[in-house]
């Protein structure tokens, strides 16, 4: 039981993290494949915490 639990525990946490990383890498692909040029001015978000908050502790 103890021998099996160790790899299972790691798989259970690393699998979702790997899925999240893979999705993020997929999302970042346009950055490397030469994204299209857009209009220079963008609307500025006005939420109380600014734009989509990614300030992680």
């Amino acid at each position, binding site marked *: *039981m*103890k021998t099996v*639990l*160790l790899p299972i*525990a*790691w798989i*259970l*946490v690393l699998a*979702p*993290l790997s*899925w*999240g*990383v893979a*999705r*993020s*890498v997929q*999302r*970042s*692909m*346009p*950055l490397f494949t030469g*994204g*299209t*040029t*857009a209009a*220079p*001015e*963008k609307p*500025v*978000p*006005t*939420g*109380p*915490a*600014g*734009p*989509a*908050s*990614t*300030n*992680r*502790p």
Partner: protein
Amino acid sequence: MRPETPPDSMSVPLLHCLSREATVAGPGFSRWLVPPAAIAVHMCIGEVYGFSVFNEPMTRLIGGAAHDPTRDWTIPQVGWIYSIALVLLGLSAAVFGKWVERSGPRKTMVASAVCFCSGLVLSAIGVRLHALWLVYLGYGVVGGIGLGLGYIAPVSTLMKWFPDRPGMATGMAIMGFGGGALIGAPLGVSLMAHFKSAGDPGVAPAFLTMAGLYAAWMLFGAWLVRVPAADWKPEGWQPAAAGSKAGPARSVSVDQAWKTPQFWLLWLVLCMNVSAGIGVLGQASLMCQDMFGVGAAVGGGFAGLLSIFNMGGRFLWSSVSDLTGRRTVYAIYFLLGALLYALVPWTQKIGSRTLFVAVTALIISMYGGGFATIPAYLRDLFGTHQVGAIHGRLITAWSLAAVVGPGLINYISTAKKKAGVPAAEAYNGTLYLMCGLLLVGLVANLLVRPVHPRHHLQTIAP
């Protein structure tokens, strides 16, 4: 895997199995089971940073595909859910820190799971009834308390299991928190896409499903976690003399630590590190679009890439701190960080998107590293006795910076654009301000000295 200590009272077996005594590991328990337990909890509560994916759908709960400005909630209104949760994270970590140390990691993780997941359930009800106050109460207040409890729950336990590598151990857990957004955001989007129907963006069923999934993972972590026996130490490891350069300090109680200059210097270190990091993270997508004239898809991809470096930096830099010492690694964060921030406007000037990505990715890795290294820094100064509770109080620095920082940065760049500064150059002032904040953090870090012996505990209660 069964607890070694027999229950004191069979009449309350459930409560007993949550107690610190019941979680003392028996002989043969692998300490490498504790990091996945901590990561399981942290990657769930880290979902808070993916919460912004619900903001826009929550403004279409009544109007359906089109926002009804007379009855639907607005973006600023729903933005407060996240801010309330962050404030409660800091407050609950500070207030409940001593209880967390007394109760042990399992009871705290269960309490965190109950609060965080019931917060999601209350929010689902609030969305269904279109009662914003209930969402504030649910996700913001109740869920926010779950965040604070879950964040500090495994910190001191991990450092007791890994006295030889405390930076790496806490880095792993806090890496899980960084990864939480990488999971939470796409999961939320996928669930809403699955549940949406005509006139309903699917927010409430998405909340309920997430509550169930996260409860399962968090309770798995709570079941798995153990505390080491009092006399346990890693095989072949000899503790350095207490207070020596290589070992932890003599222990200081949380109430005493609060009164030392070292605590407030580290508070400033964390606050400056967070405020500066937000300079890039909070504006990542827009900054990339404005500085290089790329589209929203590329900007979004840039933000996603930074999230990976934010997560990876937590583990890598905190592990490095075990080799270099905490003070040195923070000096690297602040000095190298300030230099790199100053280079960002130059990358725009020469039009090198690759260099811009490389520089900002390194900045963000150190920003994540700052979060992950702080528990081990506290342990070096205040010992392991109440380090979780001390860490809880220090998190108020992040709570403040996370709410005030983005607002300040948003204000500066908006004001520059309104003043007619070209969008590509509107961030330069903010970036130089970030350099200044990092240098303030550097000075605070260099002023940190060992805690005076008069603050040390004479005897440590069991």
